[in-house]
């Protein structure tokens, strides 16, 4: 058995909040009368649901970056692939209700004169198949990619850059109409999921609850992984990869496993995201999105899982808020936020929580004496 994670206080609080939110949201959104102060307006549900998905992505990224030192700039690819898999299911659910009323082909195929459904789309009318693909496609891509990269000992920025190249190439490919996934406009105009109208408040609330639960689950899995001996080995790999090899660990397998797990999580996040935002298109593959996800993790606190989730929610909330309140100046606010967090909260937002109770004699943290190895790690 996997050792049950002994949760720290923060982890418990996190689980209570996410699971609590999952349970409470439907009540607040559907049962509580709309004019009550406790009512959750539908657009808030949609918004929070989206944040949850981002938080899952952040946790996934923190798992590989925070604990294994793999700065993946390609996680947006896994996220988007999961999203596309779900989008394809939703597209096929539309059936004959599309504008051209074609029972099989999605609209964009009809007006581009496609005659039959491409092979890649087969099976997506089944939710089970689509759910499998949500995990399988990102997982396999991560596996294939990691298999080669880790075996070739590509590390540091070299790895970052090729993950970025991967997602960039996918973005361009999906952009092409010929590729068969709706080109730049992507997949949109979804009608229902498992028979429920995607736009109904109830479905929305359910999707939110699911996302919150998925976040809790991702956290639990990640946490179990990082506290296990495997997790210790992975941290050791982050700090001194070659030394771990001399102890007889197959570093490439260790990295591959965590990378694939993380990619699958990102895929699931993407799949939950799509029905909630109602569109998936190639811009989700954008390398900039990956960088932004990295930033959520950094803002929240790298290598803390909870911090990553917190960062994702905080940054996206800031974005939502600022773009609405000062549409012309919000970039200053967001940019400033990033700068200030780095300067004053080296441990991220999560560091704030620890600041408040310094009483407990903490083991002396090694003062940042940047050994060259660390610097190299950063620079390479």
């Amino acid at each position, binding site marked *: 058995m996997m050792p049950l994670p002994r949760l720290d206080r923060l982890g418990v609080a996190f689980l209570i909040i996410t699971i609590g939110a999952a349970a409470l949201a439907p009540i607040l959104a559907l049962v509580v009368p709309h004019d009550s102060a406790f009512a959750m307006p539908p657009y808030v549900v949609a918004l929070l649901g989206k944040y949850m998905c981002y938080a899952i992505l952040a946790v996934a990224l923190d798992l590989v970056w925070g604990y294994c030192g793999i700065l993946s700039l390609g996680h947006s690819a896994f996220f988007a692939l999961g999203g596309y898999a779900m989008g394809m299911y939703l597209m096929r659910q539309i059936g004959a209700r599309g504008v051209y009323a074609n029972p099989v082909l999605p609209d964009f195929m009809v007006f581009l004169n496609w005659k039959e459904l491409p092979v890649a789309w087969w099976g997506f009318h089944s939710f089970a198949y689509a759910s499998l693909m949500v995990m399988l496609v990102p997982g396999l891509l991560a596996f294939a990619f990691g298999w080669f990269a880790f075996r070739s000992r590509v590390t540091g920025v070299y790895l970052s850059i090729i993950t970025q190249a991967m997602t960039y190439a996918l973005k361009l490919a999906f952009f092409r109409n010929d590729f068969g996934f709706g080109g730049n406009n992507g997949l949109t105009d979804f009608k229902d999921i498992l028979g429920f109208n995607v736009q109904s408040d109830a479905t929305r609330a359910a999707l939110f609850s699911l996302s919150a639960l998925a976040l809790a689950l991702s956290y639990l899995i990640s946490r179990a992984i990082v506290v296990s001996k495997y997790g210790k080995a992975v941290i050791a790999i982050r700090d001194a990869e070659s030394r771990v090899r001399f102890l007889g660990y197959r570093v490439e397998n260790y990295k591959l496993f965590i990378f694939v797990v993380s990619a699958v999580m990102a895929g699931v996040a993407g799949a939950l995201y799509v029905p909630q935002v109602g569109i998936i298109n190639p811009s989700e593959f954008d390398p900039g999105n990956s960088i932004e996800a990295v930033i959520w993790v950094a803002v929240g606190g790298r290598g803390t899982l909870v911090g990553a989730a917190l960062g994702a929610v905080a940054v996206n909330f800031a974005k939502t808020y600022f773009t609405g309140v000062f549409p012309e100046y919000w970039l200053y606010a967001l940019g400033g936020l990033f700068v200030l967090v780095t300067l004053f909260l080296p441990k991220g937002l999560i560091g704030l929580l620890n600041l408040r109770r310094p009483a407990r*004699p*903490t083991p*002396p*943290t*090694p*003062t940042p004496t940047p050994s*060259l190895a660390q610097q190299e790690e950063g620079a390479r």
Partner: protein
Amino acid sequence: MLSVEAIDLYYGAAQALRAVSLKAAIGRITCVLGRNGVGKSSLLRAIVGQQAIAAGSIRWMDEEISGLAPHLRARRGVGFVPQGREIFPLLTVRENLMTGYAAVSRDKRTIDDEIFSLFPVLAEMMGRRGGDLSGGQQQQLAIARALVTRPKLLVLDEPTEGIQPSIIRDIGNAIRYLRQRGGMAIVVVEQYFEWARDLADDYAVMDRGAVVLAGERKDMVESEVRRRLSV
């Protein structure tokens, strides 16, 4: 004249030095002895400015230097050979040596032949990258590099570590030569007791972050010191 007075030093919450005092006079060699982890390197880091002290004072040539940035101390003649060599791995041997130019005025920016007569192996390896050298070669390079800054206070942290016996002797002779040439105070941290004893004019023994014995070599009671060094 270096005079360290009652300094405290912390790593985070852990105290590594407690009211440590040390004097090192020009023209003399001061050896600091002590077991692992008692704070010898911490003391040296405090002197060269790599670690800030929490209390006490460090005076060099009648000037308080404890507030100065490391590079300013270097420019005041403090040369440092750190434990673990800390060679610039991607710079060639020559370039490693030339980094010392930053501490001296333009007219003194040369590498004296003296250095190569002390460490002939370096002359053969001028074009090789510092990081490629063997451990012992790096140690020699580290000492040579400190000498390029023409220090008046030379601070060496375990300079014999990883060095072949004949060169250990050479290094000892080199240090003696430097003392004898005059104008230089030398502080050596060392574990190799005999070698240190033969070299020292003054000595200090540390234990648990404090100086427990100190004095001139001629007054040293060897058994007492050895007791402090044993496990």
